[in-house]
């Protein structure tokens, strides 16, 4: 697993990054360890969305204030990276950075 701290540092406006296991529904790791009211439901929603094997490996969910970048790893489809950022003009860059980080892991 790539270090969540690296993602949080590199992705501008990142609020939280987490690894989740969609099979068990568990949050495996989260950084920073914030417990804002919206984070737990957002991670649960990401798990629920990706639980179906028919879902594509990468999804981006746009909320009014946040962006949820959700991506499976190629090595373990049950393991999903969730990155939640504030909505900002850097959205495309944030998505690209998360993708590149995961591609480096899967390479």
């Amino acid at each position, binding site marked *: 697993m790539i270090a969540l701290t690296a993602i949080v540092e590199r992705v501008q406006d990142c609020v939280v990054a987490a690894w989740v296991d969609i099979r068990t529904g568990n949050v495996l790791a989260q950084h920073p360890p914030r417990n804002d009211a919206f984070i737990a*439901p*957002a991670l649960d929603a990401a798990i629920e969305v990706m639980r*179906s094997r028919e879902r594509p490996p990468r*999804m981006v969910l*746009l*909320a*009014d204030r946040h962006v949820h970048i959700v991506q499976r790893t190629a090595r373990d489809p049950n393991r999903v990276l969730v990155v939640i950022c504030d*909505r900002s003009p850097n959205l495309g860059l944030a998505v690209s950075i998360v993708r590149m980080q995961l591609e480096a892991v899967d390479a």
Partner: protein
Amino acid sequence: MAAATSNPPAAMAVLHALGRVPSDACGALVRKHPDGSVAGAMLVERGRVCWAMSQHYRRRLTDILVDEQDTLTHAQLTELFAMCRRERMPLGETLVARGLVSLPVLHRALLRHTCEALDHLVREEASPWSWVAHSGYGYHPMLTFSPAEVLTGVRAIANPALAARARARLRELVRGDDRGFAIERGAKIPLAQIHCETVELATLGDLAVHADEVMAVAATVDVRVALAQLGVLACASWVEHDVLFVLLCEGELAFNRLLAQVATMTIIP
């Protein structure tokens, strides 16, 4: 020719009838009255719908053409129609060749006529569809319709105002060669589509089911738009007034292009 609320099953009836026709077959799907007279028919050529007629659908193509293009008159069309019949010339091609209507207007008028006739035909108290094979009607491919076009047209008849709004919204948002469709949540047949004519209806249905499932979960955390990467295809979906909109974008950087577009889009709650 407003239709009743039984229209969604009407579109499904057309879908089931077309599903029985082999993709390379030419012929007519015919329904008959109990007395043996023909209630109506749908002409099909290699997976495309050419024309439909119904005993209870009285509107003529010429009425629709005049309605669609106000520079045309009934007198002009009647004269041309008589000439085409006399000299065995195809009406549609002759209309276009003489510059009386453009191909898109003719296409739209023919599609409207076919969909309205089908909407009537499926309601007739008549026999199930029977297949009558034909060697081919020789319709110009531009003047025939994919199942997706026809079924979307039949579906839209049930709720023309909603379908018109959905179509207008898609026109605002679908760029270049991108594709888009709008479907009522839980429905199987779109209300409106742009550039999805050649996409299998089952594919559109699958995309809609997935998008709807995602949106149902995502809405619990105030997510308005979902984007997904499906190989070279990027897909964005959102819901407005209980209608699910799906935009499809293909090619290099499709995901990024679509992301940039929907990030600045205002969703109508």
